[in-house]
Structures are given as C-alpha cells and as structure tokens.
C-alpha cells in the first residue's frame, strides 16, 4: 500500500545525514563532556560545535544557547525561570489562548502559585492582536509568552511587533518557535525576543532534544532542575551528546535548505488547499489564509467527525491528525479551534495535513483522489446535514454521556 506521511507538525523522520553524525556519538565517541580526559574532550568539542550551529541558525551567540530535552522542557524552563526570579518585580504573565500545552499548562500552574495570568483571545484566524497585548500590560507584567507559529492551524503570530512592544516596556518576552524554526526565516534580533524555544524532532532531528535561547542579560534563572553545573548552571544533567549533535546538524541543514524547501512546500500546500476547498463542499480552511506556515494545511469538514476521517485515511495509507475530541484523549475538541470561535460541532470535524520535505505532488494527488469518497461515505452515514447540524439540542442534559463529559 502507498504510505503517505502528512503529520510533520507531530514529528519528522531523522534525516540520514543527521542520523549518520549521531551514530558515532552512540558508539565510539561516548564520552561525558564534563570529563577532563580525551573521551570527554571529544564529546565537549562536538557539543560546542552543535551549540555554534544552533546559535548561527537563529542569529544568537553560542553562550545564549542551552540544550534541553525538547520543546516542552524549554518552554517550562523559560517561563518558570523568568517568573521566579522576577517575583519581587511583579507577578503578571501574559500568554495566548492557542499556546501549546507546554506553555499554557506551565502558565496555569504559576497561576496557582500566586501569579496573575492573562490569556489573550485570538481572532478567527488564530491570531493574537498586538493591541490586545498592549492593553493587557500592567506595571506588574514580568513576562509575555506567545508562540511564533501555531502547531494546529499554522498561523504565524506578529511576534516582531509584540517583541518590540515588550522591549519598549522593559518586559521579558518568550516565544515558542518549535513549529516555525526551519520553516520560515527569522533571527532572535529581528523578533526582538529574550527567550526562544526550539525542538529537534520537528526539524528532521532526533526526539528528546531541544534548545532554549536566553538572550545575554535576561533576568532568568534555572528554577526547575537541581543538579550538576552543566550548561553553565543553566541545565543540570549529563548532556545528551548524540541528541545535541543531531540537533546541531539538523538546524544547520534546515537553515541551509529553508528557502528551497519553503517553495516546494508552498506549492504543494497551495494546491492542496485550493483543491480541497473547491472540490469538497462544507469545508473550511482553519488558520490564516496567508500568514501561515508553508507546510501547513488544516480544515474542518462539516457533519463528520475527525477521528473517523483519520481512520479512513489511515486505511488508505495516509497519516494525518485531528483536533477532534476523540483524538485528543479528552472529551473536548482542540482548545485552539474553540478559541478561534469555531463551534464544538464543527471543531470535531477538523483535520490537519502537515507536509514535509519528502512529500511530492503525487502525494497530494493521491490525497485528493481518496479524500472525497471518504467524506462522502462518512457524510452518508451521518445524521447531520446543514439543517440539523445546529438544530439538535446542544445541551449536555440531553446527552447520555453527561457526567463523564467535562463541558
């Protein structure tokens, strides 16, 4: 069966060049970078080379890069570290309603520890407004954390504007750039951010490794991990040397190929979006039509549910994802789609297609061939149509599952 991987926002395959470089650090170059001897020195040299590569990829200096276990840790560490050290200055944190759980749950946890949290709404495209950020700032605001590009709907946020606003007010600014890094060009200077998160496995590098950029002079302190003095006291624990080497290589290649990849991906994405929205009825693109990641197409299909679409696609060899409740592991559809004002009944029918470097126009053709029959089959099975979709009593009392449903 033809297999098509369309879930690159979830994770990507490790590039062969990256895997090759990593291999040596699993085998012969196994040293601990802290050790003084030859083996340690070899490992140290490569960790520092990787740091240079990551720094160069985002326009930072190597000293400003701290290696972590991934995007989740970088987000936690950034937010918690700024909050703790600035406690005496203020206790207010601003974020958005569409952040990744690594950010939103960290901020919410701080909300239970005496911090005040403002979760900004987004518009129908999933975009935060700079005016809303400005209006939310108080003299107690110590941190603004807003993602660069959204993982579920691909919308690119006005981070440059928010960054310069934060700077003009002397507020520390963090952005989660896990999805944008390697896909759209940027530098930390241009964005004007103080902290920035990246992750290895979204850029054809390994899982379980990431980095946090911390601008020199930022009021930040490691507040979560206690242990050794690695990463200049910023992240305790023996370095994940193979992972770090892989991240460095993947970052280097991602930036080298960014322009040509983006063009390739955009051509595929634009055709996919155009064909899906014109060939299939009752479909909407979610996220911003133009300010979106080059590899990202996401839709809602009315009257049918996301998981049943994913299963049907999987039976045809196509791997995609959905923000429907059934796939999220909770009973609620994606918080991102709901924050964009998409009603529950429609959010359940969401599908996300995220393209990658190995996808071809034939993959798009294949998808366009199999998707309409899948939609037709499921719609023929559905008791919903344009008349009944919102007519059925939407109250929880009418629903037998009530009680287990958290709405």
């Amino acid at each position: 069966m033809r297999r098509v991987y369309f879930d690159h926002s979830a994770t990507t395959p490790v590039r062969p060049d990256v895997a090759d470089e990593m291999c040596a650090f699993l085998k012969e170059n196994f040293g601990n970078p802290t050790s003084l001897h030859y083996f340690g020195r070899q490992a140290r040299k490569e960790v520092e080379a990787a740091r240079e590569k990551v720094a160069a990829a985002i326009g930072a200096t190597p000293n400003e890069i701290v290696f972590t276990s991934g995007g989740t840790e970088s987000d936690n560490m950034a937010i918690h570290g700024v909050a703790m050290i600035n406690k005496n200055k203020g206790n207010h944190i601003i974020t958005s309603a569409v952040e990744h759980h690594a950010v939103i749950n960290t901020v919410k946890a701080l909300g239970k520890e005496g911090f005040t949290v403002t979760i900004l709404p987004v518009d129908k495209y999933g975009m935060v407004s700079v005016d809303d950020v400005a209006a939310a700032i108080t003299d107690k605001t110590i941190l603004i954390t807003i993602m660069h590009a959204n993982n579920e709907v691909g919308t690119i946020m006005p981070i440059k504007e928010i960054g310069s606003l934060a700077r003009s007010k002397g507020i520390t600014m963090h952005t989660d750039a896990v999805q944008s890094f390697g896909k759209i060009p940027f530098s930390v200077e241009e964005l004007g951010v103080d902290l920035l998160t990246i992750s290895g496995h979204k850029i054809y590098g390994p899982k379980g490794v990431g980095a946090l950029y911390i601008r020199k002079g930022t009021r930040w302190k490691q507040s979560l991990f206690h242990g050794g003095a690695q990463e200049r006291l910023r992240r305790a624990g023996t370095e994940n040397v193979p992972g770090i080497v892989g991240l460095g290589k993947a970052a280097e290649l991602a930036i080298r190929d960014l322009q040509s990849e983006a063009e390739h991906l955009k051509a595929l994405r634009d055709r996919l979006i155009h064909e899906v929205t014109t060939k299939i009825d009752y479909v909407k693109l979610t996220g911003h039509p133009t300010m979106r990641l080059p590899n990202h197409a996401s839709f809602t299909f009315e009257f049918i549910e996301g998981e049943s679409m994913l299963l049907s696609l999987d039976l045809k060899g196509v791997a995609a994802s959905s923000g429907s409740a059934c796939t999220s592991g909770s009973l609620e559809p994606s918080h991102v789609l709901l924050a964009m004002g998409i009603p529950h009944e429609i959010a359940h029918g969401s599908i996300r297609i995220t393209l990658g470097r190995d996808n071809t126009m034939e993959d798009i053709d294949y998808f366009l061939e199999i998707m309409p029959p899948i939609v037709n089959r499921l719609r023929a099975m559905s008791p919903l149509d344009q008349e009944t979709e919102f007519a059925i009593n939407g109250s929880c009392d009418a629903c037998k599952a009530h009680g287990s449903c958290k709405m």
Partner: protein
Amino acid sequence: MYTEKVMDHFENPRNVGEIENPDGVGQVGNPTCGDIMKIYLKVKDNVIEDVKFKTFGCGAAIATSSMVTEMVKGKSLDEALKISNKMVAEALGGLPPKKMHCSNLAADALQAAIQDYMDKQEKK
C-alpha cells in the same frame, strides 16, 4: 488501538441508512459532544424485522452502532431490551477505555428507539 472487529464494522458497517415510516426512532448524543447515534426500527409481531442506523462520531461510535443493529435484527423486543452498551462493546472484542462512555451509546439509542415504538403503540 481498536480491535479487528471494530475496524471491520467501521470499514463495512452493517445496516447503514434510514427506514421510511419507521415504527420507532431513537437518538442519543449531540453534535456538541461529538457523537450522535440515530436508530430506526421496523417491528412486526414484537420482532425487530429491520433496523438501520445513522451515526456522527468516531470509529468506535460507528462500529458500536453497526454492531448493535447486527445483534438485534430478527430478535424479539424482549431480547433486544436486554442489550446493554457493555454487551455491544464485548461483542466487538472490547473498546479502548476512554471510548467506553462517550462513543459507546449504541444500545442507548436502540433502547430509545424501542421506547419510541412502545409509546406509539400505546397511543394507538
């Protein structure tokens, strides 16, 4: 994550559709929730002569709907009344735990349809 039996019923659902002038109709769930099941019955001499379903929902919702129709077709109302959500899930070789409540409502839809039939009989 799903058993082969679930996938079989998802791929090849039995008894999909509507019945014209049904003797009973039952519906549970709502679109906000992400699952709706609607079951149509044709009843003759207290036997379920025909049964059809329409479902909006995940793979488990579709498979349980299909399964319940297969379980009751040709059965007496008394037998059909004994069918529970748990029995449907068991007939499918089990469901993932988190699917047990939300997507496993097919027997409820069936019972609602039987109730509807009985209410209509009373009125006659």
